[in-house]
Every structure is written in C-alpha cells, then in structure tokens.
C-alpha cells in the first residue's frame, strides 16, 4: 500500500514529485479519494425537469445524473449490468429512460431494469431476477444550494459535514441573492497532459502565479500587469477539511480581468444588498482576486465565475470541463457579460488560461526522468502565518501569497490515502497546521 508520509510532508513543507507520476499513487487516489469523497456532479439548473439527464464522471467512473419522475435527483454508473456497455452516449438531454445499444436492455429514470430484446427468453432462465439487474446507483447524492454532489461510499459523512464550515464561504457565490444560482447553458471541455492535482492545488492556493504567469493576459485585458507586492494584511488563505479558498478583499479583482467593466460595476452596485445578507467581509469576496478548490477536484474563480472539474484520466492526463455560474436573477446583459468574460479569460481560448496549461503539463511531464522525480518540491511559503480571526471560520492564514492552502490540500490527500475507511478519517487535518 502507498505510504503517504513518504510522499508528502506538508508540516515540513515538501511534496514528492512521485505524486504526479507514480501509477500506484494514482490507483490509490482512484480508490481512496475518488471512490470515497463527495464529488461535484451537476448544478440543479442543468436538470430542471423529470427526464433531464447529463453524463459525467466520478473519478474515472462514468455516471448518468438524472431527475426522476418523482422529482428526485439520482446518479447511476453509466454501464449496463448485462455486458457492461455504456447505456447513455449523449452529454446531456431529456429521456424517458436509457436503452443499451448492445442487447436492448432498457432502464427507467429510477435505474430499474424494465425490459429487453428477447425478454421472454430471459424470464424463462433460472436465476434471472430483473429486480437485481438495474443500473448501479451511487451510494449518496445531495445538493448544497444548487450544487449537486455524489459519493460512491455509503460510509461517507453527510455532505454538510464533508463541506463543514466551508459552506459559509460557498455562500459568497451560492447565496448572495434570494433567487439562487444557475449554470449558463453549455460546457467547454479540453484535455491537459498534466496530473489532476497540479491544477487542483493551483486553484486551492496559488495566488502567487497569477501576477507572473498571467502578466500577458493582464496587460491585454487591464492595460497593465498585476501588482507585484500585494499587501498581506488584507488577504487570506483559508481551508476547511482540505477545501481551500485564497482571496483578497478587493471585491472586483477577478471581475476586473473581463476588461469590460460591466460585471465589476454591477458587483459594486449590489454591494450594499449583499452586505445586508452576508456581512461586510463576504460582500468583499464576491468578485475578488481569489481562487477556490473544493476537495478533491472541483474548482472555481469568484468574479470570472468559471466553475470547473479536473477529471483524472491517468497520472498524466486531465480532462477539464468548465461552466459559468450566475445568479438566476442577474439581468440578461449581466449573464451575457459573465459568459463572454469567462470565455475571454478562463477557457481554453482565454487570455489567462492559455498560460496555465503549458506550465502544468511540463510540471507533470518532466517527471518522466527517474532522477528528476526523486526530487522534492518546496511548499513552505507562509509557514507560521496562521491567525485567529473573529469572523472567518476554519483554518485561517494571513496573506494569499502563501502555500498554506496547498499544504492543507496535501494534508487531506495524505489523510485519505492513509485511511482504510471513512472511520479512520479523524477530523480536519488542517486544524494543527501552522
């Protein structure tokens, strides 16, 4: 079995490059992280009506997420119990059920086996029991304010507990208005030849790269580079259960990258209403210079409102799916400004995202060298910056130019890889982080 302590010591501030390369590490992640954690699978707005479905993955397992006739959301393995063929080949749509192309096995929206080609022959066969041959459901599926998560592990704690106090931060985007949120229609997908963690840890806490990596994008969109010396007294890195949010309190730092001021102006105009709802501090986080990763692989950028999942496809390949989140009650021109803004900044053709892929691929692929991958990577920036804060829950660190969240990500990663079941996962591994 993998010994996570050999691979990462966040307390001392290092991570082995093997975590990006070793196939055994990757297999352990599929078993102990992706088959175990609550994973983002949909936004409720993507499935408003009975029969609406989308296909996605949990780890490398293909799943169908659908709204049943009774209005409940459900998710099943996208694989026929008969010979295993995929039963749903479209990325989204509306259906009365799912029929396998191979032998015509047919399933209801509730996953039950309804019938098949040559049904009477099956019915005469000893041991055939349609009741045991439905689509395999996930163990648990729950929503948090529009975001739908599922887990394959019946022992996983409830979603509320899994997210913990991170919900207080998620409300910045999910609950700043009575009407709730929605995803704009469509989904952009691309392939990166990098390990999934390189991307996830970047969104968890790498504010550092923004000013350097994205200088060209900033100059094109803002007319100037990003500031080099950011005052650490007004920015934070916080984490809860390995979920990470690094942020300034500048309200529109991210939104400003759209160039066009429409969204930034709109956020400022709403500030008082949001303050009344969420308080002064959270009102300043809505479009701020910030990035977020919900453990393990669900990330977003407040301000650009680009939401994304880094699907693992082997140690050296990641498939990225991105969506744009807006408030349902945003006026149409604001929704359009978010759609175009996210496209121009953080999509495969975007002025900012373009520079990330190249870095992340090389960060991963250099480790083909056996001597190279023996080397450790330094994650020690911001050791000793933990602070007590009156309002911010969770583990709070002063300054967003800080590896504190990336260390927290690897603490959670090591905790899960080292645990045989959820019963062995004892609390937030970040609570004693300094």
């Amino acid at each position, binding site marked *: 079995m993998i010994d996570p302590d050999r691979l990462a010591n966040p307390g001392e501030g290092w991570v082995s490059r093997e975590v990006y390369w070793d196939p055994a590490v990757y297999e352990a992640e599929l078993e102990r992280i992706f088959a175990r954690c609550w994973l983002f699978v949909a936004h409720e707005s993507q499935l408003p009506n009975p029969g609406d479905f989308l296909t996605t993955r949990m780890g490398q397992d293909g799943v169908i997420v659908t709204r049943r006739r009774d209005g409940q959301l459900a998710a099943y393995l996208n694989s026929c119990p008969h010979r295993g063929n995929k039963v749903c080949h479209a*990325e989204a749509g509306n259906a009365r059920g799912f029929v396998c192309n191979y032998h015509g096995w047919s399933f209801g929206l509730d996953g039950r086996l309804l019938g098949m080609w040559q049904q009477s022959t099956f019915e005469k066969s000893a041991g055939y029991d349609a009741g045991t041959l439905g689509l395999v459901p996930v163990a648990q599926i729950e929503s948090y304010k529009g975001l739908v998560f599922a887990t394959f592990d019946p022992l996983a704690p409830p979603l509320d507990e899994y997210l913990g106090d991170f919900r207080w931060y998620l409300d910045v985007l999910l609950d700043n208005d009575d009407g709730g949120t929605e995803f704009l229609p469509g989904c952009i997908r*691309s*392939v990166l030849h990098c390990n999934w963690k390189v991307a996830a840890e970047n969104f968890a806490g790498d504010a550092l790269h923004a000013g350097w990596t994205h200088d060209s994008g900033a*100059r094109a969109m803002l007319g100037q580079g990003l500031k080099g010396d950011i005052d650490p007294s007004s920015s934070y890195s916080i984490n809860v259960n390995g979920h990470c949010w690094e942020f300034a309190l500048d309200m529109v730092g991210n939104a400003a990258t759209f160039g066009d001021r429409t969204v930034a102006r709109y956020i400022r105009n709403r500030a008082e209403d949001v303050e009344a709802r969420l308080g002064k501090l959270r009102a300043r986080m809505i479009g701020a210079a910030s990035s977020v990763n919900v453990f393990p692989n669900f990330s977003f950028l407040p301000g650009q409102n680009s939401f994304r999942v880094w699907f693992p496809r082997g140690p050296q390949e990641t498939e990225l799916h991105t969506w744009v989140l807006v408030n349902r009650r945003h006026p149409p021109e604001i929704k359009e400004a978010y759609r*175009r803004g996210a496209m121009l900044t953080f999509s495969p053709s975007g002025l900012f995202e*373009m520079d990330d892929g190249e870095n992340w691929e090389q960060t991963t692929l250099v480790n083909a060298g056996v001597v190279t991958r023996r080397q450790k990577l330094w994650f020690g920036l911001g050791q000793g910056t933990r602070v007590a804060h009156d309002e911010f829950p969770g583990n709070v660190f002063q300054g967003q130019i800080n590896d504190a969240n990336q260390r927290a990500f690897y603490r959670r990663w090591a905790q899960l890889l080292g645990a045989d079941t959820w019963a062995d996962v004892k609390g937030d591994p970040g609570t004693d982080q300094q």
Partner: protein
Amino acid sequence: MALWIEVSQFLAYEARVLDEERYDDWLALLTEDVHYWMPGIENRRRADPIGEYAPGRMAYFDDTLEDLCRRVLRFQQPSAWMEDPPTRHLHVVSNVEVSLEATGAGHPLGGQTIIAHSVVVNYRSRGERDQDTLYARRRDRLRRDGEGRLRIAERVVQLRHNVLVAKNINTFL
C-alpha cells in the same frame, strides 16, 4: 470561377498570415463589425432540439473586433511566456465553395455579399514534440472594402470536436 479563385487566394493568404503570426495583418482582413464565433460543440442526440451548438451557449470565441484585438495584444506581450519559443502553426484550407447572397438594396457592393464555405485543419507544434491538430468547417461572410478588397465580416468556426483535444487554442482558425 474568377470569384472562386479570388476567394481561394484570399483564404490561402489569410492562412499564411496566421502561420507567420502576423496578427496585425490578420486583424486588417476583418471588417470593423466582424463577428467571429467558435461555439462549443455538444454531444447530443439527433432528436435533441438544442442541437450541436446554438447562440448564447458556451463558446471558445464569440468575439467582436475589440475582443480579437485583446487576444492579439496578449500574443504580442513579451511576457506571453508560452509563446516563446514560438508555436509552429500550419493552417490548411480546402473544400472552398463560394456563393453570392443578396443583401439589402442600396448596399455599396451592389446588393451582394459573398458566402464562402471552407474546411480548415490546424496543426500546431510546440517545444520539442508537443503537437495538436484541430479540424473545423467554416462559413464566412465576406464583403469588399472601399478599395474593393475582400474582408471577413462574419466567421462561424464549427469545430469537429466535442472535447477539444488540446489544452488551448493559441491561434485563430
């Protein structure tokens, strides 16, 4: 036939301008009111009324000239680290079909715009052996400027990919 030759030559010239990263020259081939659209391609069933793509849904490009100028400005920054050493681009344009479409009376072009359908294959090679190939169909609406030169007023780039088999699109198709 003369128009087909002229349009084919124009599209081949445009492809060479892009291969040579002469982005200011490329912008000069667009009209001021250009709409450059590369929608995201969705993998939906034939019966699904939403179809492969539609206006207002997620896109790679849904650009005005100002947006395209911003993209070019990024390519031209000395700090566009990933563009240095440069990408080796190749735009292959084929299957060119040309037709005329009636426009409003009193139009400076005698009431006609040129519709050009084409196929583009874009090969990119970066670093030592990193390579991507993208395939697309294009539908262009071309107009003549005051001096009679062809200019692109509208381009729809219909990618032949659902998942973009690349990490980015650091060019124009």
